[in-house]
């Protein structure tokens, strides 16, 4: 038994049960392509008239979209009535497939799950063979909404009495996810509000700061946060009610109370200290016994090279350089004097724990030592827990002995303090939920102020005025590059290359094309800038191969689409999307014609060169 049903068998069964046309959802693009390839040279072909109808349609379609005229998949589609549909294909080809499907000329379309969200064409049957989908690097289970999106393509209104979902197992399928997905309630949607730099600039351009606070309060994000606030508010009211009997009492001893609480809080915040057998004197000494410190041992003065604990008993140990010039080990408790002098020291990881030159200097220094160098006074820490006030707090007892309400409070202290703590927490949570968005807005505004796009009074500067026109991802990187004149006198193809590498955020591997030296040094510069902005904006991938691809397409007007695609291992659809996105980025730069006429012209030139053949077909 093969792991999953063979595509030919699948289509055969669907045809025999009158379940065509069908959409077969597969995990990967490759799966779709292989399914189609499996049909070549088999007997699963469609009738001649059917084939003819497909051919006529495709010919007709090719008049509007010449890029599909010689598509390599045309023979398979017209002979076998099946097609693949995924993001690796050109949009025009996908549209042709969709239109064929709408007209009922295809029996099966093998598609990746991206289709479910992307386009809208129904079929009689939907075949699902997996319960998970690849998202970025990982496989995730399909959500209920996703499964219903897939299944929803089954059954065409007005063309079918019933639609079908066919589940066919493949390895790693989980049938229950599909069962739940087909019959369950779709997930709730949550706001994904993020504040971006262009948003801040554009809002500040048109609105005052107060108005913006109002606008942010109108967002769905805030609406959902407010709903959470109401839940917390209820809890808070509840707490208030519970606190009622403990009432506001006059507390006269608030200074002592505050001190003790603060101390207790700090003590409790720490983890349990590591238990050592060190004497209090030794514990007080240890912070001073650092490498480079001059100490006095019974034998004479020495310099510490490293401090460590012995593996067995855990006693603190020192590696020292003795006065006579030998390196040795000794226990830290053998230290007699801690002198008030530290030598410059660069520790190394191996014996003798410092550079030989340093060792040499130390030897000389030890030889010329005065008789009694000044020592460091060591004070033993007095244990705080001995404080009677604190010991009471630490045992969860109530403590303000000098307070007049002492007896009243003492009874219910533990409960009341717990309630009060909870009240504080809830109040804080509510504050955070209410102001979170506004704070994030201010953070972004602060960054923009730091870079000089807005003034301290939230007014756009001259730079901010044009920077707000760049409303794409990595806008800060692009505007910074423009501000530092990185693009002055750049050739159109180079600009397009840089934009392509900024725009492309897909890490699907592809071939490495040769970069021109100009572009590669340019990309190096961009990478530097992107890294320096890392704290404010996640840097783009800046792949050099896509930059080279875009540069070739724009720099060589005689290059045709087919040879461009042949020069890379990227799928045709990916190349198209890359260039379309680059076009979008360039057009944003083109909007800066008022302030940066030279750059805008270059962008315009690049756009003009770019829009040819396939890229000119669709608006």
């Amino acid at each position, binding site marked *: 038994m093969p792991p999953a049903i063979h595509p030919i068998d699948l289509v055969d069964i669907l045809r025999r049960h009158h379940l065509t046309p069908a959409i077969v959802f597969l995990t990967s693009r490759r799966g779709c392509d292989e399914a189609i390839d499996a049909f070549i*040279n088999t007997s699963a072909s469609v009738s001649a008239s059917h084939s003819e109808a497909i051919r006529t349609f495709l010919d007709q379609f090719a008049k509007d979209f010449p890029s599909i005229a010689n598509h390599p998949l045309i023979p398979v589609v017209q002979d076998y009535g099946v097609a693949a549909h995924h993001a690796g294909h050109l949009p025009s080809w996908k549209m042709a497939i969709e239109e064929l499907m709408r007209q009922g000329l295809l029996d099966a379309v093998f598609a990746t799950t991206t289709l479910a969200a992307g386009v809208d064409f129904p079929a009689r049957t939907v075949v699902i063979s997996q319960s998970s989908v690849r998202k970025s690097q990982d496989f995730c289970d399909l959500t209920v909404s996703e499964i219903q999106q897939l299944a929803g393509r089954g059954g065409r209104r007005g063309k079918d009495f019933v*639609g079908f979902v066919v589940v*066919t197992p493949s390895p790693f399928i989980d049938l229950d996810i599909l069962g739940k997905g087909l019959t369950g309630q779709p997930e709730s949607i949550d706001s994904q509000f993020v504040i971006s730099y262009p948003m801040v600039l554009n809002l500040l351009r048109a609105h005052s700061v107060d108005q913006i606070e109002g606008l942010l309060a109108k967002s769905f994000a805030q609406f959902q946060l407010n709903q959470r606030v109401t839940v917390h508010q209820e809890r808070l009211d509840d707490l208030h009610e519970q606190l009622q009997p403990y009432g506001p009492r006059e507390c006269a001893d608030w200074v002592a109370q505050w001190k003790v609480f603060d101390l207790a809080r700090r003590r409790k915040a720490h983890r349990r200290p590591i238990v050592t057998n060190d004497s209090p004197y030794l514990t007080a000494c240890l912070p001073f016994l650092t490498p480079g410190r001059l100490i006095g041992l019974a034998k004479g003065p020495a310099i510490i090279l490293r401090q460590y604990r012995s593996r067995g008993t855990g006693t603190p140990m020192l590696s020292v350089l003795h006065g006579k010039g030998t390196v040795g080990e000794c226990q830290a408790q053998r230290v007699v004097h801690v002198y008030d002098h530290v030598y410059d020291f660069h520790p190394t990881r191996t014996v003798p724990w410092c550079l030989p030159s340093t060792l040499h200097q130390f030897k000389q220094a030890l030889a010329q030592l005065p008789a009694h160098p000044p020592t460091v006074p060591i004070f033993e820490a007095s244990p705080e827990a001995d404080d009677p006030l604190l010991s009471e707090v630490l045992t969860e007892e109530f403590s303000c002995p000098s307070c007049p309400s002492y007896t009243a409070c003492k009874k219910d202290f533990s409960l009341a303090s717990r309630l009060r703590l909870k009240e504080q927490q809830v109040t804080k949570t509510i504050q955070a939920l209410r102001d979170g968005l506004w704070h994030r807005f201010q953070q972004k505004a602060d960054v923009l102020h730091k870079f000089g796009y807005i003034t301290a009074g939230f007014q756009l500067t001259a730079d901010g005025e044009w920077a707000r026109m760049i409303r794409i991802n990595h806008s800060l990187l692009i505007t910074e590059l423009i501000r530092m004149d990185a693009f002055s006198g750049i050739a159109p193809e180079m600009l397009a290359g840089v934009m392509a590498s900024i725009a492309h955020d897909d890490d699907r591997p592809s071939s490495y094309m040769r970069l021109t030296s100009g572009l590669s040094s340019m990309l190096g510069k961009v990478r530097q800038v992107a890294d320096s902005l890392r704290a404010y904006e996640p840097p783009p991938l800046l792949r050099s191969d896509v930059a080279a691809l875009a540069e070739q397409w724009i720099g060589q007007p005689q290059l045709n689409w087919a040879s461009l695609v042949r020069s890379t291992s990227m799928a045709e659809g990916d190349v198209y999307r890359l260039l379309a996105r680059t076009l979008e980025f360039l057009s944003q730069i083109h909007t800066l014609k008022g302030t940066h006429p030279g750059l805008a012209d270059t962008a315009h030139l690049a756009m003009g060169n770019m829009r040819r053949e396939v890229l000119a077909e669709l608006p």
Partner: protein
Amino acid sequence: MNDDDLNRELQRLPIKYLHQLAKGRISRHFRLGKRRLIECMLGLPQEHKMALATSLANLSLPTRESVVNSPTPPPPSPGESPSPFYSKPTARTSHHTQGPSSPPIQLPELLEGIGVPSPMPFVPDEWQREAVEALAHADVIVSVPTGSGKTFVAIEAIKQAMAANQTVIYTSPLKALSNTKYMEFSHRFGPDLVGILTGDRRDNIHAPLLIMTTEILRNVLYDAASGEIDLRLHTLGLVILDESQYLADPERGVVWEETLILCPSQTRLLLLSASIGNPQELAEWLTSIRETPCRLIRHTKRSVPLRGLYLHPTGQLVPLFEARDIQQKKGYRFHPETKRLFNEYEVKPFR
């Protein structure tokens, strides 16, 4: 047996038996598909091929005759099983349903009613009329299953707004969808009345119906707020946001929110969305931030009923659930036959 005969015999075999035959003869045969397997077998030396033919003859094929199909089998009627080889599941299912417990659905019953309805004049559903009418005095959110006819609502709303001499903006999340809709609407309303805006191109932007992606609309609204605009925003009467469930998209969802917040107050909103869990919440939000109230149109019933089937890799087709139609929120019970087959598959999928 010469090569041609052997080829024909092998072609008729299900791939399972081909793998049986190939065992020990072709290395890594399990990686190969049917075509490649047969090619490899025919490429074997002559004496090996003789042995192959013998074992082919000895191969115990209980349903040997059924495998022998004419190249294009006559399409059987849905109730009837097409060939003995494939009839197994049907037979078993019927055997199973003779049990005393509540009878699960049988395959023929499930496959009943496949067909094409005769063309009828289109009668809009109740909810579709309701949605269009509600637009006169409220914003509308439509949350219905995929394929219920949301586009019809959009078209009626566009007609209504155009008749009132208003501008309509239609947004979709993807460029591909915009293009499809542009072609569809140009066809329906006439190319003069439809314009499209993309990141780098503006066609016919003074048309009463404009199609764009949501990002572009957001940018337009930004520009309008700062007073530099070449679109007729004061006559903007209706904004249609298709696939509004994108509001929850981690990367782009914020654009939908911004658009909704910045939309001029005289404009009506029509949000078309697939089934989502909390459309009520969305409607409450819109009501709270806009001057006009927001009306929610939602239902979960599909206009075309959906049924589930389970197809085993051996080619057995059985019902997926015990009930006939897939229904929402009623829970589910897998068909016993599906459970049996799937357990078999899970235990030894690679046998």
